[in-house]
C-alpha cells in the first residue's frame, strides 16, 4: 500500500464517514471559537456570550437530533435509515452508535436548559460569561467524546478534556476562599486519578499490545480463555482496576468520591448542576462503553468467548460491588449534612450507585440475554434523562434560594412554605422524585433499573449478585427518604427564621425556570411512554 492510497483512503474515511457523524462536536467547537472571538474582537463585544453559546448549542442539538433520528429502527426517521448500527470513526478512535447519539442529544438538550438556567440565576455575570461558556462548552465537547471513545488514548483525552475545564469552573467564584479551595482540590484529585488511570492504560496496552477497544477485547478473551500465566492475569486485573478508578472518579463512585462533596459545596450551584448531570451522563456512557467493548465481541468463538465471559463476570462483580458500596455510603453520609449543596453532592453519589447497578445488570446480560441487556441500557438512558430534570431542578431551586436568602444552609430554609409556597411545592416534587416515589419521574426511572435487576434474577444471570443489588437498592431508597424529607420538613414545618427577612421580590423568571424544569418531572412520571421509546432506541446498540 503506497502512501497515496493510504492518504486517499484516510481522506475518504475522514470526509465521507467520520465527519458527517461528527457534526455535533464540530458545532460545539465552532461555538467555542465564536464565543472566544466575541470576547476578543471589539466589533462583537456587544454580543452576549450566553446567547452566542445558545445559538451554537442549538445547532449542535439539531445535528445531534438528526443523527439520533437517523438510527436504524428509529420511528422518527425522515428517510429510511440506511446507516449501519455502529460506525467506527477516524480510524477506530471513535465509534458512532445509538449510545453516542443518545448521550450527545442528552448533553446538547441539557446545555440548552443549562444556559437558560445560568442566564436566569445570574452566575456567571456578563464579564465572566465568555470564560464560563467556553469552559462549559469545552467540557461538554470532552463529554461527547467520552460517549463515543473507542480507543484508550481517546478515552483518556476525552476524560481530561471534560475534567480540566471543570477544575476551572469549580473556581469560578473568584475571591471566595471555598471556591478556590474546591478548585484546587478538584484539580489535584483529578490529576491523581488521571495518573492512576494512565498507569492502568499503559499496563493494559503493554499486555494486550493495542489500545483499540475491540482489538483489546479479542486479545483479552484469548489470553484469559487460554489461561495464561497468573502474572499476566494479575497485571491485566490491576490495569483494569486502575482504568476503573479513573472512570469511578468521573462518576464520583466510592472510594473515588472524596472530591465530590467539597467541590459541590465550594463551587457555585450552577457548576454543581453541570457536574452532577452532564459529567454523570458522560461517565455512565463511558463506563458502559468500556465494559461492553472489553467484555463482548460479536464474532468471538471458542476460547475467546469463554475468556470474555470471565472478563464480564469480573467486571460485573467489580461494578456491582462498587455500586452497592457507593449507593449505601452516599445515602448514609448525606444524613448529617447541613449544607444543601453538600447534601446534593451525596445524593449525586448515591444516584451514581443506582446507575452503576443498572450498568452491572446490563453487562451481566450482555451476550446472554440481548433483549434484557437492551432493556437495561434503555433503563439507564431513561434514568439519565429524568435525572437531568430532577437534579437541574434541585440545583435551580438552590440557586434561586441562594439569590433570595444569601444562604445555602438547610436551616435557613425554615418556614419557607409561608413566603414561597410555589418554590416549596417544586422542591417537594423534585426531592420526592429523587427518592423515587410515584407519581414522579424518579419512580419510573428507578423502577426500570430495578426491573432490569429483577429480569436478570428471573433469568438466572449472576443471580446472587443481582439479588444483593436489588435488596441494597430497595433498602437504600428507604434510607434516602430520611434526608430528602428532612429538607422538606424544615421548609414546611419549622417556624420561619426571623433573622432572614426574605426579599419577597416577585420572581417571575426564576419561577418560570423552576416550573419549566419541574413540570417534566411530574409529566414524565405519568406519561413516560414517549421518553421510554427514545431510551429504547438508545439501547439498540447493544445487540
Amino acid at each position, binding site marked *: 500500500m503506497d502512501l497515496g492510497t493510504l492518504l486517499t483512503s484516510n481522506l475518504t474515511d475522514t470526509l465521507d464517514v467520520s465527519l458527517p457523524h461528527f457534526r455535533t462536536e464540530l458545532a460545539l467547537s465552532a461555538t467555542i471559537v465564536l464565543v472566544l472571538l466575541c470576547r476578543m474582537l471589539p466589533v462583537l463585544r456587544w454580543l452576549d456570550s450566553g446567547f452566542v453559546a445558545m445559538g451554537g448549542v442549538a445547532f449542535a442539538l439539531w445535528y445531534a437530533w438528526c443523527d439520533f433520528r437517523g438510527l436504524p429502527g428509529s420511528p422518527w426517521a425522515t428517510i429510511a435509515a440506511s446507516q449501519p448500527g455502529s460506525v467506527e470513526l477516524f480510524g477506530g478512535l471513535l465509534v458512532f452508535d445509538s449510545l453516542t447519539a443518545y448521550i450527545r442529544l442528552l448533553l446538547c438538550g441539557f446545555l440548552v436548559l443549562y444556559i437558560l438556567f445560568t442566564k436566569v440565576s445570574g452566575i456567571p455575570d456578563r464579564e465572566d460569561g465568555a470564560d464560563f461558556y467556553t469552559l462549559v462548552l469545552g467540557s461538554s465537547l470532552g463529554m461527547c467524546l467520552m460517549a463515543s471513545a473507542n480507543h484508550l488514548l481517546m478515552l483518556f483525552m476525552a476524560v481530561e478534556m471534560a475534567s480540566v475545564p471543570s477544575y476551572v469552573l469549580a473556581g469560578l467564584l473568584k475571591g471566595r476562599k471555598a471556591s478556590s479551595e474546591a478548585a484546587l*482540590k478538584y484539580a489535584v*484529585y483529578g490529576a491523581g486519578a488521571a495518573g492512576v488511570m494512565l498507569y492502568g492504560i499503559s499496563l493494559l496496552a503493554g499486555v494486550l499490545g493495542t489500545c483499540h477497544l475491540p482489538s483489546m477485547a479479542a486479545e483479552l478473551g484469548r489470553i484469559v480463555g487460554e489461561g495464561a500465566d497468573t502474572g499476566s*492475569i494479575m497485571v491485566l486485573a490491576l490495569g483494569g482496576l486502575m482504568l476503573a478508578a479513573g472512570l469511578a472518579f468521573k462518576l464520583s463512585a466510592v*472510594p473515588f468520591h*472524596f472530591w465530590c462533596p467539597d467541590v459541590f459545596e465550594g463551587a457555585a450551584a450552577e457548576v454543581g448542576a453541570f457536574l452532577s448531570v452532564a459529567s454523570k451522563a458522560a461517565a455512565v456512557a463511558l463506563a458502559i462503553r468500556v465494559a461492553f467493548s472489553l467484555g463482548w465481541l460479536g464474532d468471538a468463538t471458542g476460547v475467546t468467548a469463554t475468556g470474555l465471559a470471565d472478563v464480564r463476570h469480573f467486571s460485573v462483580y467489580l461494578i456491582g460491588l462498587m455500586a452497592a458500596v457507593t449507593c449505601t455510603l452516599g445515602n448514609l*453520609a448525606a444524613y448529617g449534612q447541613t449544607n444543601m449543596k453538600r447534601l446534593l453532592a451525596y445524593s449525586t453519589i448515591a444516584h451514581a450507585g443506582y446507575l452503576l447497578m443498572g450498568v452491572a445488570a446490563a453487562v451481566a446480560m450482555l451476550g446472554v440475554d440481548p433483549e434484557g441487556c437492551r432493556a437495561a441500557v434503555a433503563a439507564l438512558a431513561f434514568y439519565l434523562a429524568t435525572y437531568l430534570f430532577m437534579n437541574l431542578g434541585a440545583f435551580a431551586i438552590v440557586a434561586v434560594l441562594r439569590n433570595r436568602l444569601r444562604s445555602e444552609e438547610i436551616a435557613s430554609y425554615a418556614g419557607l412554605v409561608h413566603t414561597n409556597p410555589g418554590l416549596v411545592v417544586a422542591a417537594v416534587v423534585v426531592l420526592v422524585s429523587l427518592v423515587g416515589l410515584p407519581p414522579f419521574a424518579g419512580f419510573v426511572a428507578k423502577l426500570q433499573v430495578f426491573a432490569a435487576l429483577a429480569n436478570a434474577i428471573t433469568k438466572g444471570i449472576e443471580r446472587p449478585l443481582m439479588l444483593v443489588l436489588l435488596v441494597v437498592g430497595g433498602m437504600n431508597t428507604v434510607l434516602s427518604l430520611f434526608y430528602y424529607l428532612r429538607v422538606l420538613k424544615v421548609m414546611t414545618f419549622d417556624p420561619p427564621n426571623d433573622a432572614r427577612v426574605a426579599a419577597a421580590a416577585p420572581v417571575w423568571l426564576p419561577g418560570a425556570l423552576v416550573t419549566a424544569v419541574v413540570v417534566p418531572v411530574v409529566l414524565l412520571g405519568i406519561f413516560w411512554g414517549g421518553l421510554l421509546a427514545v431510551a429504547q432506541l438508545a439501547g439498540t446498540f447493544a445487540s
Partner: protein
Amino acid sequence: MDLSTQLPQLLGLAWLMPLASFVLILFFGPKMGHHGRNAAWVATAAIVTSLVLSLVAFVSWLGAHPVSAGHHGGDHGAAHAEDHADAAGHVAGEHGSDAWHAAGGHAAAGHGPIAYSGDWYTLYEGGRLRLSIGWYIDSLTILMFVVVTFIATCIHVYASGYMHDELHDVTDHEVTLTDGHHLHRPGRFPRFFQALSLFCFSMLGIVIAGNLAMVFIFWELVGICSWFLIGFYYERKSASNAANKAFIVNRVGDFGMLIGLMALWGALGTLQFADSSVPGADGHAVTKPGLFSLVRPADHGHALRVPDGMVEFAAAEKVAHTPPAEVAGKVDAWRAEGFGRWLLFIAGVGIFCGCVGKSAQFPLFVWLPDAMEGPTPVSALVHSATMVAAGVYLVGRFFPVLTPDVLLVIAYVGAITLFIAATIALVANDIKRVLAYSTVSQLGYMMLALGVGGWAAGLFHLVTHAFFKSLLFLCSGSVIHACHTNDMRKMGGLARVMPYTAGTMLVGCLAIIGAGIPFVIGLSGYYSKDSILAQALSFAQANPRHTILFYAVAGGAALTAFYMFRLWFMTFAGEPRDHHVAEHAHESPQVMVMPLLVLAVLAVVAGWTLPGGFGIANLLEQSRPAGTVETAVGGFAFGQTLTIPAEHLSHGEPFHSTATWTAFATALGGVLLAAAMYVWRVISPAAVAAMFRPVYSFLANRWYFDELYHALFVVPAHGLAAVASGIDQGLIDPFINFLAWTTRQVAGIDAWIDRTFVDGLVNATANATWTLGNELKRLQTGSLRQYVTFIVVGTVALFVIASLFFRQALAG
C-alpha cells in the same frame, strides 16, 4: 305523524314538564321573586303545559279512534244471553278440568283493546330481568292524563291564592314552643309548589307506566310526595304524625305488592303489561309476551288461564323429574291438575294489597282521614282525586290478570270499606274529615265495582269522583279559609256570605249522591253510580250468595246522601251557630272561586254521553281488556264457582231500571232525612244520638279502629322494641364493652411490647444509621493529602478484594 310515535312524545313531554318545574323550584325556588312568589307561576305554567299536551293527545286519539255509541250496547247483551246459559252448563260438565272459561265458544272473535306500548329507556338488563321506563297508552291512560292535569291545574291556581300566608313569615298558632310562644317561622311557599310538581310528575308516571316495576317506582314516589305534603306543617305534632302514619300504613300494603311483583317476575320473568319487542340473541328483535298476553293468550280466545311459566314454577318438583324435552307437552296436564292457580291468585291479591294501602281500603284506610292535616289543596288533589285513585287505577290496569277469586276479594274489601267509612262520616263534625271518609267510601264503591266485573263502571266512577270530590274539597277549603276552623258545629248560614262557595258545593253534593231525573238526565255521579248499582245487581243475580254486595251499594248510597247533605246543611243553611266565626266569614278571592266554578261545571257534565255517542263511558270501552267482554265463569279458592257477568248485560233490563230507581230512592231518602234533622228540625240529632248512644259513640270513635290498631300493632311493636332495647342495653352493650375493655388491655400489652422492643429496635437501627452516617462524614476530612492517598489506597483495596474474591476469575 303516526299515532304510535306521536302519543308517547306528547304524553312523555306532558309527564316530564312537572319534573322540570320541580327541578327549577328545587334549585332556584327561594330566588323566584319575593319569598319565592313566582314559584307558583313556574309550577302552574308547567302543569298547564302538561294539560295542553294531554288535550292534544286526547284530540289526536279521538281523531284516530272515534268514540261510537252502542259499542257494547244493550242489544248486544241480549245476543249473548243464551251463550251465557250455554257456557254455564258447559262448565258444570267439565268442572275441575280447566278452571276458567270465557263463556261462549266464540270468544276468540273478541278483539283486544286499542293500546300502544314501548320503552323509552332500559334501566337494567341482565339475565331474565329487564327493567325499563316505558309507556302503555290506551284511552284510559289519556283520560287519566287529562283528568289529572286538569284537576292539578285547577288546584295549582287555587293554591296560589290559598297558600298566600306562606309568602311571609308565619306564626303557627297550633304549635306552642317550650317557652310558651307560638312557633314563628319563615314562609314555605316555593316548597309547597315544589312538592306539588314532584307529585304531578310521579302521578303521571304511574298512569303512563308500561310495566309494573315502573308503576312501583312511581307508586313509591307519590308516597313520598304525600309524606312531604301531609307533613307540610311538620312542626305540628299532629301533622308529622299523620305523615308518618300515612307512610307506614302504605308500606304495609306495599309489602303485599312486592310479594305480588315477586310472584309475577319469578314465575313469568316479565313485568311488562303488553308484548314488547326486545333484541334477541342473534340481534333481531324478538317479541317477548307481556303479562296480559301470558295470562290471556290470544290463541286461547283471550280467556284467562294460568300461564305456562306459573304452572312450571308451581310444579317445579315434577319438572325436575321430567326430561326437558317433554316438559312443554305436559304443561296442559299439570294445569288441569291445578298447578299455578294459587300463584296467580297470590300475584293478584298481592298487587291488590298495594292498592288497598294507596286507595285507603279496609283495613288500611286509617291513614287517609289523618292525612287531612295537610293543606286543603293537597287534600283535594292528592288525597281525594288522584293519588288515592291510583290504587283503583292499578286494579283497572291490572284487571286482565285478576282471577274471579281475586275479584271477589276485591269486591268484599270494597263493600266493607264503603260501609264502614260511610257510617263514620255520618257523625263526623270536622268538615274535611267528613269529606275524607266520604272519599274512602267512594273508593270502596270503585273497588266493589271492579270486583263485581264492572271494569268500566269502576273507572267511570273514578273519573267523575275525581271532579266532584276535588270540587267538594276546594269548597271546604274555601270555607275553612273564611272561618279559620274545620268544625262544622261552629258554622251555619254561610250561604249568605259565601254564595259561590255554597252554590258550587251544592253541585258537588248533588253529584256525589248521584242526583238526577231518572232516565232523563243527571249529574255526573248519577251515571257512574247507576252503572255500579246495575253491575252489582247483575252480579248478585248471577251469584245469589253474594247478594249482600248489592245491599251494601244501595245502603251506602243512602248513607252518602245523608252525610253529604248533613254537611251542606250544617255549613251553609240555617242561622250561624258561632257569631265570632260568622263575622269573619267572607267569600274567597277570585283566584280561588274560579277553579270552583270550572270544576262545578265538570261535576255536572262529566258523565254525559253526547248524542253522537261521545262520552267517558264509551271512551273507556275502547280500552276494555281483551277477554272481559264476555261473561266469565270460574273460581276455585272458595270452593265455589263464580260468575263474573259481562258488563254490557247490566246496561240491559231489568238491571238498568232497577238500579236507577234504587239509586233515586236511596238518595232521596238520605237527603230528606238530613233535611228533617238539620233544616226542618223535626228530628233532633242530639236526641237520636242519645237514643243510640252506644252506636253513636262507636261511630264517633271511628269504630275504634285507631285504638284497635294501637293495641294490636303499635303497643306490641313498642313492647318488642322495649325488649330489644333491653337486650341491647343489658346484654349486647356489656358484651361489647367487655370486648372493648379486653382489646384495650391487650393493646396496652402490645403497646408496651411495641415501645420497648419494636420501637427500641427501630430506634437502635436509626441511631446506628445516624452514627454510621456521621462517622462516614468524618471520613471526609477536607485534607487534600489524605484524599490523594485514598486514591491509591482505594485502588489497592479494590485489587486486594479482587484477588481475594475473584481469584478464580483472575486465574482464568
